[in-house]
């Protein structure tokens, strides 16, 4: 069940709100009800994987309890290794096998397994809590609250990657307390804005760009279409930012304020700034739980600290790439960003400051160009796109690029969605509510086109 499915928007979400309305006056029911709703939400996609989710919660909770009882770090280490092993099995086992087969020129194992939805996210949630427990920063929580932290349905599938300290205290709060109407209004506005980003900005780009990337996967891209392919950066931005905003909005309907995930990243004037505004919750995780430990661990002499610092940066970004998918193109994408971050760091340390406009243009160009590798699926396909850039786009077909121009203008000029929501909900203006209501209907109408019937079989 996705946030832009009728099943979610017209059935699950309204039903959940009604059910929770009955639980709300009873503090002892609140967390349990949301946990059950979250498990139902999760099971909609693939019921057997609910067992994996339940097992994952139980094992990690028991490991945390065992650590608290004995203070043996081995419980924490073991749980983290087990989490990474499960993630590795589901996400990377076949990738490793393919690489071994390539190296040793013989076939290795192949598992016909589906990737459990949200496994990367709930694995990272476990790790954040367990590491902080080991550091003495995180307290002990009840099983119900811990289960909700891992499974809370607005964030379980694709984030935002909330830290335990950001959300644990919010779980189980009364929703229908004085002022709930404003909270709902803000939540509803986030949901509508998020769906607008997804439905009106990202999806039209997908329909425009998918055939170009399909072509690139088996032949060179001609007619200057490669320039259109650069628009994937805008597509992925509005797709994910839209999803995150819907998650934040839904969270607010259950009195949980999730962290923001995007802050106009394509308005950044350097790459470091970009990574502080793009998928912010993942980057905060990688910074605190990968980069800083790697950077601070004592290896070698002090004079090599700078090398270690930059190596940690590079490795963190390569891992960031690998986290996005089991393919060398993702690793390359991450490593390129890592290299660029090193260069930007050195530049800022030793070279004069670039004019803001030049910095912005270089950052946006780098992000859009590297997004091609992220999307293309193979280096051959990416090279087919890059080679096609030698050909300028056909101006007579500029009308095709309207979705890209619209998305680019929004990405470069509009404030962050959270700022837009804040502005729209400063005061209870009835006109805004009416417009948002009609926008919601228009989005539902747009989402009603679940199939592409306009297949044009003209090429035979």
């Amino acid at each position: 069940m996705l946030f832009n499915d009728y099943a979610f928007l017209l059935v699950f979400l309204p039903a959940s709100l009604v059910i929770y309305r009955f639980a709300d006056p009873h503090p002892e029911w609140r967390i349990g009800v949301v946990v059950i709703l979250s498990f139902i939400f999760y099971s909609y996609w693939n019921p057997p994987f609910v067992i994996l989710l339940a097992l994952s919660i139980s094992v990690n909770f028991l490991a945390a309890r065992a650590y608290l009882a004995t203070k043996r770090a081995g419980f924490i280490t073991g749980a983290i290794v087990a989490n990474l092993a499960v993630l590795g099995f589901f996400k990377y086992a076949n990738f490793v096998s393919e690489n071994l087969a390539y190296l040793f020129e013989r076939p290795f194992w192949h598992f016909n397994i589906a990737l459990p939805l949200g496994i990367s996210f709930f694995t990272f949630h476990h790790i954040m809590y367990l590491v902080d427990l080991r550091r003495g920063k995180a307290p002990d929580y009840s099983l119900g609250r811990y289960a909700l932290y891992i499974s809370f349905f607005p964030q379980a599938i694709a984030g935002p990657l909330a830290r335990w300290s950001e959300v644990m205290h919010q779980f189980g709060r009364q929703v229908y307390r004085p002022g709930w109407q404003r909270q709902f209004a803000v939540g509803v506005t986030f949901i509508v804005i998020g769906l607008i980003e997804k439905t009106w900005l990202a999806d039209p780009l997908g329909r425009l760009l998918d055939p170009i990337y399909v072509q690139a996967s088996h032949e060179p891209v001609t007619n200057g279409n490669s320039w259109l392919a650069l628009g994937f950066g805008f597509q992925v931005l509005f797709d994910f930012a839209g999803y995150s905003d819907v998650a934040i909005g839904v969270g607010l309907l259950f009195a949980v304020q999730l962290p923001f995930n995007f802050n106009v990243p394509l308005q950044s004037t350097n790459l470091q700034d970009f990574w502080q505004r793009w998928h912010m919750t993942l980057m905060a995780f990688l910074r605190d739980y990968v980069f800083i430990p790697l950077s601070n661990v004592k290896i070698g002499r002090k004079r090599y600290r700078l090398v270690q610092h930059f190596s940690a940066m590079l490795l963190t970004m390569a891992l960031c790439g690998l986290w996005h998918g089991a393919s060398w193109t993702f690793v390359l994408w991450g490593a390129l960003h890592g290299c660029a971050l090193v260069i930007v760091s050195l530049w800022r340390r030793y070279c004069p400051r670039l004019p803001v406009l030049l910095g912005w243009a270089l950052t946006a160009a780098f992000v859009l160009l590297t997004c091609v590798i992220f999307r293309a699926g193979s280096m051959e396909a990416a090279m087919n796109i890059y080679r096609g850039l030698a050909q300028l786009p056909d101006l007579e077909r500029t009308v095709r690029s309207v979705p890209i121009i619209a998305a680019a203008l929004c990405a470069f000029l509009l404030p962050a969605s959270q700022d837009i929501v804040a502005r729209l909900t400063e005061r209870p203006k009835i006109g805004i509510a009416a417009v948002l209501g009609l926008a919601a209907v228009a989005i539902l109408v747009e989402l009603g086109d679940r199939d592409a019937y306009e297949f044009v079989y003209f090429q035979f």
Partner: protein
Amino acid sequence: MSLSTSSSDSQAWGRWLAMFVCMSALGAGVIFALVVLVDPYDSGRFGFIGIEGIRDESPRTANASRGRDPQFSAAVFGNSTGQLLKPTELSQATGMRFVQLTVPGTGPREQIALLRWFVGHHARADALVIVTDPVWCTNDPALPILNPFPFWLYSESPLEYLGRLFSSRALGRLVRRVQLGLRLRTPSAPDGYWNYELLGHGEFRPAPPPNEPAETAAADQTRFPAIEQLASFIANVSNVPIVLVMPPMIASKLPWPETREAARLAACKAALARLVAARPHSNFLDFRVDNPLTRDQKNFLDPLHYRAPVARLMEQRIAESLRVGSGGPTTF
């Protein structure tokens, strides 16, 4: 972002939420009322204001209207390989009233849905011409769909149809139908004919080399799940004459003799012929043959799509078949 409010604000935000819900409900209600009044696809389920005809370039959806049009009593089914058969020519040659219900890029499942739709809306159909190209020879029991097809439009459930009318595509059709009602647009061709030759030339690539010999692969030549489904359909329309047509292709692309492909195609043709063998005024026409006509590249737009002169010949053979049945012609 601060979420705290005063009590008077709470009331105002309550009204804000009420307005949001009311406008959403009102918008959705107006859309539902419009689609029920207009029936965007002219499926005959709703459409209380009585606009006639459709303006729809996609046969996938337009055939819902054509397939129930009472001015037609016979129809041509298939994919693009049946598209050039002209309803007016067939009507003239047979005295029946033909409509084109072929849909490019479809296979057996979609075509059977259309067959059911047509027969369901005609108490007495005069004839069915089914262009059974080799997609009907599949051995995959799942009968995979190559391109999206609106099965909901041809389903028996009005609710399933209603559920799909809340979409921008349906609203686009709705606007066109309203324009049609106001005479601001002209309707699409009621008989569904469209000449793909207007698109220009296709591509003729060299023929592939011969594949495995026939004797190595006899196992998968006995089952044709799509033809089995067609047999069940045909059994339920016992009084309707049916002509099955294996469309021509350029001879250089035919399977090489004594290969697995050739054996399978021959078995498929035999299975199709058996379906209509004992049926009155019914026949199986095999145009997928190697002869001077199919060897001449000028007769084809591309290897699979023949040109108008070939279509005219096929129409004559179809008309003869409807007259004399299985004792009639077998090919060109």
